[in-house]
């Protein structure tokens, strides 16, 4: 009798639980999510631009063969599994998941994948660097593609997987219609499909009902994706105070890049979730190494020696929740992190800096420093410290378009301020690219980077990266000031948001 009651109780409980979980699942679906971003992206085609917003909006609609997990390592997305790699490490065989559909209803085939990867190889910065080393890419059968390399490299897979300038898969006819210009038809395989882009108003997308999620659970930028909300609107607001008030006032649900000064006021707010992001980049002073006073290594050493990074970062990012002192080129969250060169970082030693300046034979020549508006506070704080050591700095605030234009001419500047956004692999990282403005064209670096690109064993590659970092603190092509995060806020009823270095809204619902 007792056991019957017990069984009965269990049955009732199970039914209740089922009911609750069903109704929870039901309430998760639906509603419109309004996400505030800081500008209109210049295009929605991630092949065409490395601007962060392009892929942040884009990867709700587009997916690649691979994606990145929480530690930014490649995981399969449209591919069934990681590629089969031949023994000589030259041939990658990639199988697509069967039954995948594009937003236009057509099946995803190997032809689409090949056309897209080829287009990416022509348009994207990362694609171009991979394709220098690609012998061929071909359709093997309806769902299999084969990528042949001319020499082994350790970065093919991660390049195919990263979202920034990523190898997203479009239908073949779209690739053919827009061979060298950004696509104007946004057709992908992602959990949301494109509806409309009204410049300065919104980019609207709705749930893609035929979406085929992968079998394994959500992980980083990949894994199982569910479009809980019916519709997402990305709304560009350029003023950071307005981004804040628009969510605080209840008009929108989520905003990225709100003023970090407001963190202390908002962290216990009853209606707002205050979400400092994971560190996503580091702040940098980039030197001109082709011309001018800063092309002398000794000068750069004096510069680095004088800097006390904490106050500089605090001037720009406020509360310590938003910045972190760290000497490593790659972030702490990545497998590439290293402590090499830490004794040179964050010294704040004015006396030593003075001595170094003397050794360098510096006679007070004017140093032209270009800084965008966003970076101005940090640049100013650093300037104050450097002046104590005897640097004569002409800090010129200007809007970013002007910085981007002037920096190509080495006669016009000595330093500019910028952010360096995380990349999953050091070979993709901007400050280590000798062609990037500032031109770190050291033969030693080029040799090390070549080795890094062709080596396939991780332990060997890590050792090489440590050597790069050692060189970074010897030649000081760039000053790493520190890591930074940005401040995001969400309304209390936004659930399921995964606060990584970049934002995404699959698996997010509204209560």
């Amino acid at each position, binding site marked *: 009798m007792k056991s019957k009651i017990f069984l009965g109780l269990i049955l009732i409980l199970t039914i209740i639980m089922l009911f609750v979980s069903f109704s929870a699942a039901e309430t998760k679906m639906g509603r419109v999510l309004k996400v505030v971003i800081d*500008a*209109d992206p*210049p*295009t*929605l085609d991630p092949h*065409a*631009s*490395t*601007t*962060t917003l*392009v892929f942040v909006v884009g990867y709700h609609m587009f997916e690649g063969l691979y994606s990145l997990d929480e530690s930014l390592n490649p995981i399969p997305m449209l591919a069934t599994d990681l590629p089969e790699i031949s023994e000589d490490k030259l041939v990658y065989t990639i199988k697509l998941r069967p039954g995948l559909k594009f937003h236009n209803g057509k099946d995803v085939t190997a032809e689409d994948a090949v056309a897209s990867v080829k287009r990416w190889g022509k348009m994207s*910065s990362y694609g*171009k660097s991979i394709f220098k080393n690609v012998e061929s890419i071909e359709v093997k059968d309806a769902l299999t593609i084969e990528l042949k390399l001319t020499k082994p490299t350790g970065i093919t897979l991660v390049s195919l997987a990263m979202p920034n300038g990523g190898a997203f898969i479009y239908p073949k006819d779209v690739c053919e219609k827009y061979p*060298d*210009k*950004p*696509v*104007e038809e946004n057709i992908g395989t992602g959990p949301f499909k494109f509806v409309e*882009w*009204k*410049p*300065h*108003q919104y980019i609207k997308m709705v749930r893609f009902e035929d979406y085929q999620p992968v079998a394994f659970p959500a992980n980083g930028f990949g894994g199982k994706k569910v479009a809980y909300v019916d519709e997402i609107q990305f*709304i560009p*607001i*350029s*003023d950071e*105070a*307005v981004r804040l*008030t*628009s969510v*605080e*006032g*209840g*008009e*929108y649900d989520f905003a990225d890049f709100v003023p970090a000064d407001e963190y202390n006021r908002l962290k216990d707010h009853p209606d707002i979730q205050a979400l400092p992001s994971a560190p996503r980049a580091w702040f940098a002073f980039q030197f001109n190494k082709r011309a001018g006073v800063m092309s002398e290594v000794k000068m750069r050493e004096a510069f680095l020696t004088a800097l006390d990074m904490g106050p500089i970062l605090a001037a720009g990012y406020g509360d310590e929740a938003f910045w972190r002192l760290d000497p490593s080129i790659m972030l702490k969250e990545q497998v590439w992190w290293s402590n090499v060169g830490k004794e040179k970082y964050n010294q704040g030693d004015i006396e030593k800096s003075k001595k170094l300046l003397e050794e360098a034979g510096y006679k007070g020549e004017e140093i032209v420093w270009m800084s965008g508006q966003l970076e101005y506070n940090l640049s100013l704080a650093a300037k104050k410290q450097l002046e104590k050591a005897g640097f004569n700095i002409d800090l010129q605030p200007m*809007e*970013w*378009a*002007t910085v*981007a*234009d*002037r920096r*190509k001419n080495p006669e016009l500047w000595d330093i500019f301020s*910028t*952010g360096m*956004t995380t990349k999953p692999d050091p070979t993709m990282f*901007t400050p280590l*690219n000798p*062609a*990037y*403005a500032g031109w770190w064209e050291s033969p030693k670096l080029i040799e090390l980077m070549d080795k890094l690109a062709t080596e396939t064993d991780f332990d060997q590659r890590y050792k090489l990266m440590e050597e790069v970092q050692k060189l970074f603190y010897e030649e000081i092509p760039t000053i790493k000031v520190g890591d930074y995060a940005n401040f995001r806020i969400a309304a209390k009823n936004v659930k399921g948001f995964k606060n990584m270095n970049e934002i995404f809204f699959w698996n997010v619902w509204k209560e």
Partner: protein
Amino acid sequence: MTNYILKRIFALIPIMFLVGIFVFFIIHLIPGNPAAMMLGPEATQEEIDAFSKTMGLDKPVPIQFAEWISNVVKGDFGMSLFFQGQKVTKVVFEHFKVTLTLTILGVILAILFGIITGVIAAINHNHLLDRVIMVITSAGVSIPNFWLGLMLVLFFSIRFSLLPPAGFKPLSAGLGASLRYFILPAITLAFGQTSLIARMTRSNMLEVLRSDYIRTAKAKGLSKVMVNYKHALKNVLIPVITIIGLSFANLMGGAVVTEQIFNIPGVGRLLIKSVFTRDYPVIEGIILYIAAMWVIINLVTDVLYVIIDPRIEY
């Protein structure tokens, strides 16, 4: 009169042409490259140059100008460099509709409150009411838009959740729903203009009230209301209309600050954004549009003078 209007409309052509040349060369003189903005901060120069070429930006500026002007004459302002395959005319028109709504609302509020308070102040010259109105309007002229806008948001949206803090709904979403979004921005816009109109109305009214014909009207035994509103007010309106015309033209060029604070997709915001991203065709389109607006609104103002004051002839 018709001749006059036609003459003014024809005068638009050389004005637009000059503005066009001027703007084209100015924006090509400032540093910056749309390709660099599009490709992102981490692009190398090689990539930027290659992309400039596909966008046709590598051609010499005079050739770009010749191509542009010959298209403009045909009514083709080109495509936005930034917004996927959208025509400049379409982008500007979309933003123009929003600016027009906001401007009309703002100007109506400004005229209504400006004239009423101005007249009240004049009639109660040197009394308490006059002083209070003058203090408020002084504040109205001096308070910057961005501060007033943020204060309104703080009170009406964040403190009391009465109105949306930012954003926009088109009229097609329903009049009520759309108006809700326009109330705070319209007040922000109107406050300064109201004060200007009120002060202008007051000083003119005071002058008129001291004139002979008003004394005569009063002596005839006309009621105060008749004297003030029928005889005096009508003669106050000419300079006031000039002010209204100016502020209308000004606002039609985009209320940059207000649009920014309330995130309203109007012409002002479009202009700012396009300058930051160096979207040349859009900048050129907007400037030509603003120039045309000034000419047209000035013309309308001049015509209104004739209607209000029959003594004026062209």
